[in-house]
């Protein structure tokens, strides 16, 4: 049996449309989900629209709400630590982050603010666009921020020089009817080669920008017939990217492949729009959260749906811990757990060890870059699981 502290450690935090923060604890024996809010005290204005880790150690969860409030949840104490109202521009908080311990927020009307004690640094990221959809922090250098929105193409900003963007993307050529191609950036991802940025749009495009080469996208193609809503990189392969659509399709794309337009793999099982995708840093799993109220975990390379949990509310965004030894812990056959406060647990009956061997073979075939880390993880379940 796991010790008490491990029992209460949550791997994944999800923000819902009703304003509830949900924590999910996936481990080898059971799955626990918990609502961290008093449900009755919430209303639509407290919808969680942005979520992020507060620090490297993942002890704090930052949440941005629809009514421009920032809430901080401490994962050690398992309680809301602070709540702070900000007022810049209008609209919900679209993205949130931290730079050297200082909170960074982006609002739908385009203002990106770094709330320094000495004086706030503000960037007007909208330009001539209608509204801002997303702001992402560069994971490799905290000061750099990418923004995109409706009719506001990709821009890179340096927080030390807020007046002018360091990179402004140029739109693609006019289409065959000589009409300007409309722009509506829905999500942005930084690839780990430090020069490429992948962008998805609600006009079905997936684009790759090489910042050092040119302003126009080096690669631009369409995926499916519907808007793309989310994008995420995998940490192992520098050119692999997950893209989710608004009807519930998720595809794994390889920008360096022979034909990047064809997804390497399509992920099935969604009934509604994919809202947010997070790839687990240490294991080959991808977590996704969708409008049909489910949290799903797929295996990256086999595409198998490993885990699916009903969350009751429409889900907006999620964060997952980087270092979790989930491979041996993702339950395959498990008893259903539903709980709010009492820790009622039912143990699952058998473990399947055969699966692990098959997974290894699939990995070797799929990804070019061999990561020796992932192979080392095949070991029997020990007591030192989460963190």
């Amino acid at each position, binding site marked *: 049996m796991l010790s008490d502290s491990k029992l209460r450690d949550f791997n994944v935090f999800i923000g819902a449309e009703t304003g*509830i923060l949900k924590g999910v604890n996936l481990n080898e024996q059971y799955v626990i989900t918990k609502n961290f809010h008093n449900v009755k005290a919430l209303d*639509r204005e407290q919808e969680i629209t942005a979520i992020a880790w507060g620090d490297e150690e993942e002890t704090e969860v930052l949440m941005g709400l629809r009514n421009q409030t920032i809430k901080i949840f401490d994962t050690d104490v398992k309680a809301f630590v602070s709540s702070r109202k900000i007022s810049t521009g209008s609209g919900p908080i679209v993205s949130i982050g931290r730079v050297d311990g200082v909170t960074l927020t982006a609002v739908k009307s385009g203002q990106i603010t770094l709330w320094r004690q000495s004086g706030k640094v503000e960037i007007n990221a909208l330009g001539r666009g209608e509204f801002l959809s997303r702001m992402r922090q560069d994971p490799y250098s905290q000061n750099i921020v990418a923004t995109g929105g409706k009719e506001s193409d990709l821009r890179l900003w340096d927080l030390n020089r807020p007046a002018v963007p360091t990179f402004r993307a140029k739109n693609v050529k006019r289409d065959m009817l000589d009409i300007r191609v409309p722009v509506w950036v829905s999500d942005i991802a930084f690839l780990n080669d430090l020069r490429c940025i992948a962008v998805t749009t609600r006009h079905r495009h997936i684009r790759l920008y090489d910042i050092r080469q040119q302003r126009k996208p080096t690669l631009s193609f369409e995926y499916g017939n519907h*808007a793309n809503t989310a994008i995420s990189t995998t940490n192992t392969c520098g050119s692999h990217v997950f893209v989710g659509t*608004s009807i519930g399709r998720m595809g794994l794309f390889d920008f360096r492949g022979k034909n990047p337009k064809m997804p390497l793999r399509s992920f099935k099982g969604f009934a509604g729009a994919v809202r947010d995708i997070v790839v687990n840093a240490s294991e080959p799993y991808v977590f996704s959260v969708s409008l049909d*109220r489910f949290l799903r975990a797929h295996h990256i390379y086999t595409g198998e749906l490993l885990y699916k949990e*009903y969350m009751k509310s429409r889900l907006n965004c999620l964060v997952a811990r980087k270092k979790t030894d989930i491979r041996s812990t993702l339950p395959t056959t498990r008893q259903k757990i539903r709980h709010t406060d009492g820790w009622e647990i039912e143990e699952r009956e058998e473990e399947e060890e055969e699966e692990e061997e098959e997974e290894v073979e699939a990995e070797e075939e799929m990804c070019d870059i061999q990561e020796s880390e992932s192979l080392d993880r095949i070991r029997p379940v020990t007591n030192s699981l989460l963190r």
Partner: protein
Amino acid sequence: MKKSQDAGRDKRREKKRAEKLGIPLPDKGPKQVPHTLESLREKDVTMVEEDDEELYQEEATDAYASYFTKAYEPKVLLTCSDNPHKKTRSFILELCKMIPGSKPVWRKKTSVKSVVKQAAEHGYTDVLIVNEDRRVPNAMLVVHLPEGPTALFRISNPKICKEINRDYKDISFHRPEVILNNFKTRLGRFIARMLGALFHYDPEFKGRRVCTFHNQRDYIFFRHHRYAFKDTEKVRLHEVGPRFTLILQWLQEGAFEGDFEWKMKSEMRTSRRRFFL
């Protein structure tokens, strides 16, 4: 056929034999209830439970909350695709008679987005667009106006009053009661609220009119009756008005724009015993 004949014959033989010998018939245990597709339905995690705090909270704050608090009276705009044929025209007019507070408007090649926008400006709360194919209504788009959800239903087996030997003039102007049967999952519950919110919240029981949406195996059967209670137990039903079946195709958040909350895909039909509403 032959199997049941044999079974009947065996039963009768046994009974005769038992009577002859004066022995009681062997007790075969309690009568077995036959399995149906509904009883064998795949367990669905999203089935709504009774006291679910989260559910009630969500319903108190969603797009239809103001309907259930009687904050507004529904005003429905009914349209169809361009150049409708006779059956669709009759269908629309009968739907208008049936739904209180509704108005038919002929659509002349206006795009759906434009219809939605204009209806919102004129104070409508819902838009119903009936699509026609091969001279017969085949789909219905229900849009809730102030940025509300949109649902597309496929209409199958539409019957106007004349086809069931009724007169559309029999549909009185009393506001009907609405019955929503068998919507068990979360999605089903949301759709039920959506359909119920088309009708006025205050029924006139004097008129004894009922509109029923009965869900069975993801098919929503719509029937329109006038009822009369013979005594406390028995009811006489007289079917009036159009009759059709709806099948949900997709549900989108936003008035004909935005992300899809649910979309039917062929990969979701994993088994014959899996239903979504």
